[in-house]
């Protein structure tokens, strides 16, 4: 599904990523883990087009998307959520999801201003869909609330609903469990599996090892900008290099 080949990223003299190559298999839940500063978020930013890579290529379903801007990648089905939840705080919960449906609708400046009949039909359709998505993540009662006032946990659910609105083929989640309590994390795990069951491939960066070991089919371990290991959760748990990177030498 997503193929990273030889990704490198330098910020001035600092090498944040070096020679990262792996494949996120179609239909899998792939976890990217590593100690703080390993380059996980940078890798996400390169994969989604926030930063261009200094070297290497990003391939989505075999197509080179390295030069596409984020909105172009979103249209191809590569969608992400953010570590610190980037909601549109001054808009309502429903409107946030409606922005997610931007690519699923097409009314432009003129048809919006003149309320063309087909634009009204489209508007009704996207509103219905947005409500369905809020049902899917379990927060339909919050639809008219201003998104900036949501709790962290609810905000995370909204962000996932909004990302789902883009009909992603691949959903990248940056630390979805960060800031959630244990019951919220358990709900999140169920939600992520539910999304996978819809046929959506998932990549996630996560620190919560219980969550990662529970839901991931495949893990990639980064350390100091390089790839340390790749394999199933069981293989990674027994990998000596990984244990050393996390816990230090004996």
């Amino acid at each position, binding site marked *: 599904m997503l193929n990273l080949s030889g990704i490198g990223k330098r910020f001035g003299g600092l090498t944040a990523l070096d020679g990262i190559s792996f494949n996120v298999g179609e239909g899998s839940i792939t976890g990217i883990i590593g100690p703080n500063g390993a380059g996980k978020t940078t890798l996400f930013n390169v994969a*989604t087009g*926030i930063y261009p890579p200094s070297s290497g290529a990003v391939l989505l379903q075999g197509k080179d998307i390295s030069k596409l*801007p*984020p*909105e172009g990648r*979103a*249209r191809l089905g590569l*969608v*992400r959520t*953010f570590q610190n939840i*980037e*909601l*549109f*705080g*001054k*808009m309502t919960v429903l*409107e946030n999801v*409606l*922005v*997610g449906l*931007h*690519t699923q*609708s*097409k*009314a*432009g*400046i003129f048809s*919006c*201003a*003149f*309320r063309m009949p087909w*634009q009204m039909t*489209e*508007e009704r359709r*996207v509103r219905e869909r947005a409500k369905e998505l809020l049902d899917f993540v379990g927060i339909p009662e919050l639809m008219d609330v201003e998104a900036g006032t949501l709790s962290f946990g609810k905000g995370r659910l909204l962000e996932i609903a*909004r990302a789902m609105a*883009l009909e992603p083929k691949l959903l990248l989640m940056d630390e979805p469990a960060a800031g959630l309590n244990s019951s919220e994390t358990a709900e999140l795990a169920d939600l992520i599996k539910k999304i996978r069951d819809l046929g959506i491939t998932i990549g996630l960066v996560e620190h919560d090892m219980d969550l990662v070991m529970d839901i991931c089919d495949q893990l990639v371990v980064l350390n100091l900008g390089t790839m340390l290991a790749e394999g199933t959760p069981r293989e990674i748990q027994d990998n000596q290099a990984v244990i050393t990177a996390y816990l230090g030498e004996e």
Partner: protein
Amino acid sequence: MKSDKLKFLAFCLVVLLAPLPLAGGYLTNVLIFVGINGVLALGLNLLLGYAGQISLGQAAFFGLGAYGSGVLTTTYAMNPWLAMAVVAVCVAAFAFALGFPVLRLKGHYLAMATLGVGVIANIAFNETVDLTGGPSGLSGIPNLSIGGLIFDTDLKNYYLVWSFALVMIFLSLNLVNSRFGRGLRAIHDSEVAARVMGVNARLMKVQVFTLSAFISAIAGSLYCHVMTFISPTSFSFHVSVELLTMIVIGGLGSVYGSILGALLLTLLPEMLRTFHDYDIVVYGMLLISMTIYMPGGLVAGIPALFRRLLPARGSNA
């Protein structure tokens, strides 16, 4: 949805009836300028209040509209309605081309670039004497007319200007409550997140900039035909700052706020005649106190104030 329509109809009614008690007096004349300023403020509010992109050069588009119509209808004797359409389209095309490089800038840099556009346009109005008449202005601009109806009195011009204003308010209300408007507000809140959602931020910012220039150009054309005389001082940096003050006071991101701000700031100078050249100081103080105490403008601030006062009274009772 229903209450939005009612609100708009009520507003139309107020606009329709407002000049009746004034009997075509001096205040009718002031209300014409409330209409023109309202249209200009609305154009800037779509750009700044919704999309979050500042422009300190709105006077340039206003002036280009006024001078475009003025010159075409005097020197070239073009039909005023045709001239208005031609000029508005040309100014919009100019803004569209200008928007791509300029709107790559953010914050202070965008403010500086648009300020530059405003200053350059004002210098051009002053210096191209053969075309614009320079500092002494351009006179003899005809009134607009439809068939036999010539818009030559304050009352007629009031209804002319406000018909335009109402149409623009109606279209703007549609626009901000739609896919396009949501895209703009998303860009305002978080451009990165908006782009990740597939919102083409670069294009939409240029589109709304173009729209605001188009609206300003129409206001300029109306202004020149109402005044029949224009000079560069009406399109100076001062005007751009006034428009900014109007929407900050009325309410950023509120269509009706633009009109309320235009109303207050057009009436205010009439009331503050004694301040004369110091009016810019008053504007500055208004801007500062509004951003500190009522960041949502009067449209959001007054209901909030009532909400704060009413429960307090309830608890006393």
